[in-house]
């Protein structure tokens, strides 16, 4: 339907339609470039990394180190939320603790290195530093609270249905 709308706009020279189509095209291209590669990495991760490894670094026994790993991992995330979600889900289904997975998602939104550099260059280093110092503890704290309250609802043996 959307494609038809774009086509009709193109035929009748309907400006809003053409502009929206242009946006759409630009996004599809720029995101596919990231998504394709990111999913190949996720595929490799699923095949090669053992469940035990994920459990050791991100599982119940990992303690506070799991959160540090999650933040380090998130800072290297490329793309945006749309990459972080599938990565987070992979971690989760390989036995990572939910609160750590949530920390990863939250931190991926906040600490991505290229993004932070970009931010600091437009808004100043002070801005970025305050933002990081305030947000990271809050993200960890809220992830622990949410994670713990949801983890009880999930059968730990069969980590699948979250709904």
């Amino acid at each position: 339907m959307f494609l038809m709308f774009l086509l009709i706009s193109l035929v009748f020279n309907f400006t809003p339609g053409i502009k929206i189509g242009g946006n759409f095209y630009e996004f599809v291209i720029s995101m596919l470039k990231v998504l394709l590669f990111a999913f190949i990495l996720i595929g490799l991760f699923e095949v090669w990394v053992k469940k035990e490894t994920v459990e050791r670094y991100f599982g119940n026994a990992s303690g506070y180190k799991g959160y540090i790993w999650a933040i380090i991992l998130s800072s290297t995330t490329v793309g945006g939320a749309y990459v972080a979600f599938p990565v987070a889900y992979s971690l989760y289904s390989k036995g990572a603790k939910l609160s750590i997975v949530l920390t990863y998602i939250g931190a991926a939104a906040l600490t991505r290195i290229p993004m932070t550099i970009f931010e600091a260059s437009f808004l100043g280093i002070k801005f970025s530093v305050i933002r990081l110092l305030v947000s990271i503890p809050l993200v960890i704290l809220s992830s622990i609270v949410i994670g713990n309250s949801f983890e009880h609802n999930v059968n730990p043996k069969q980590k699948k249905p979250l709904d």
Partner: protein
Amino acid sequence: MIFLYVITGGSLFISFILNKDKTIKALKVAWKKIKKILPSFIKMLILISVMLYLLPDKTIAKYLGGTNIFRETILASALGSITIMPGFIAFPLSGILLNKGVKYMVISSFSSTLMMVGILTFPIEKEYFGTKLTVVRNVTSYFIALIIALAIGLLYGEVLL
């Protein structure tokens, strides 16, 4: 971006040398996952392209340049939550807003909700983590973003207690 290509290419190459079958399996896994998420993904992109048309940079600048800092902060958080922009658009835009006299607190509210709260990515997030958890996470993130904005406002001396 190049970083991602190098890492992916390198890993794929090493993986292929170590074990051909596993590598092919990995590619199949990747393909299966892409296929599964693609419909939600397209939905999100359609929403974003319509949104960016309805809310161009200029409109955003117009609405955030007012004098009531708290009203602007809340407005900015609403805009940030419903919009999604890639970083290469969002931060230059923030820079422009700053030059137009928009307060740091308002910009922080906008950029933080932009990154943390995703109404448009909801279909994707839901696909992975279920509706309930997605709602809870986004609502929490919204308040965290507001707290960040307040901290920025205080430390830049824009808000006095």
